[in-house]
């Protein structure tokens, strides 16, 4: 989850003018609270139970982040964010694992790790402000935020309908709308992972299921959808610091 890493970054750079704000995209806030408690954040730690920040900032997976300057202007749009290397990138995969788990870990290891470049760019921005070479103009921010065709806008509305019904009626009422959101915007992993977790996590589990395997409710699952998208290397919208 890397919350301790973000907290450490806040502690390091807050005296120089950076505030880290973390926002958990969790319809059920009880799922994120234990992680937040464990990280003991001194930075603003938010829970977005309606995924409103997905739509307003363009988050389509986690972790992703935006940079906001002192005047409230975005100087980088939503992009993959990390400041510490995930240990999963370097895990040794035992040969005797079940095939799907072996394949899943193989794809996880292929996920791009931007942590060194991301941290360096962030530190540069904090030190140099608007003159940092990593600051984008307003036009560049908008251009890099990605297209929003009608299908994506419809997916946002369908996902929100599903969320509302999840809260007011129950998970079964949400499913048709979440299926529709997945169909309309297959590259949006927040829509998929949020929905999958409710059907693949056993009722008595103490933590959400992160493997999110095949199930009887949704057509997709994490591994097969990653493979359909070209594998772990294509899993995130990579930050472009060139």
């Amino acid at each position: 989850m890397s919350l301790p890493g973000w907290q450490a970054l806040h502690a390091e750079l807050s005296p120089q003018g950076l505030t880290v704000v973390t926002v958990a995209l969790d319809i059920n806030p009880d799922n994120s609270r234990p992680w937040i408690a464990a990280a003991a954040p001194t930075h603003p730690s938010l829970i977005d139970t309606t995924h409103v920040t997905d739509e307003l900032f363009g988050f389509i997976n986690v972790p992703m982040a935006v940079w906001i300057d002192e005047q409230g202007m975005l100087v980088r749009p939503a992009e993959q964010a990390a400041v510490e290397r995930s240990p999963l990138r370097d895990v040794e995969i035992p040969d005797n694992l079940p095939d799907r788990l072996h394949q899943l870990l193989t794809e996880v290891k292929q996920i791009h790790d931007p942590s060194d470049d991301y941290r360096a760019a962030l530190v540069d921005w904090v030190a140099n402000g608007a003159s940092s070479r990593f600051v984008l103009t307003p036009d560049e921010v908008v251009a890099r935020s990605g297209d929003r065709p009608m299908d994506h806008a419809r997916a946002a509305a369908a996902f929100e309908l599903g969320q509302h019904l999840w809260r007011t009626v129950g998970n079964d009422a949400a499913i048709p709308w979440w299926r529709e959101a997945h169909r309309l915007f297959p590259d949006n992993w927040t829509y998929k992972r949020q929905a999958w977790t409710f059907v693949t996590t056993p009722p008595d589990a103490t933590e959400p299921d992160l493997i999110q395997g095949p199930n009887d409710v949704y057509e997709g699952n994490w591994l097969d959808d990653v493979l359909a998208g070209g594998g772990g290397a294509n899993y995130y919208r990579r930050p472009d610091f060139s």
Partner: protein
Amino acid sequence: MILDSPVVDAGTFAERTGWVAKPEGLCKAEMCVPAPGADRGDGSLDVGVVADRLRMPLLHDDSYNIWALGPESGGRALASAEAADPELITVDGNPFKLSSLHGRKVLLVAWASW
């Protein structure tokens, strides 16, 4: 935006989407879109007109009779580089606005338990 009828309070709509109803139409930053018929004259907006003019999808759930109005389409995910300022909630349940941090640089990081 979830609605129980195809009418929305103009203030609520502006808070959520950034589009403000003005005499010249629906406006966001320096852009205005003419929207005759959208303003109902009582502080509310006709969602059907708004959806049509701003190319926002309007979905209806027949079983529970609710609507969802999606974001504008046809352009970029961000219409402007001005950061949105929704009312968010801290882990302690207190309201929080990103604008409370004006004057500082902010790194807004999305994460999740899943």
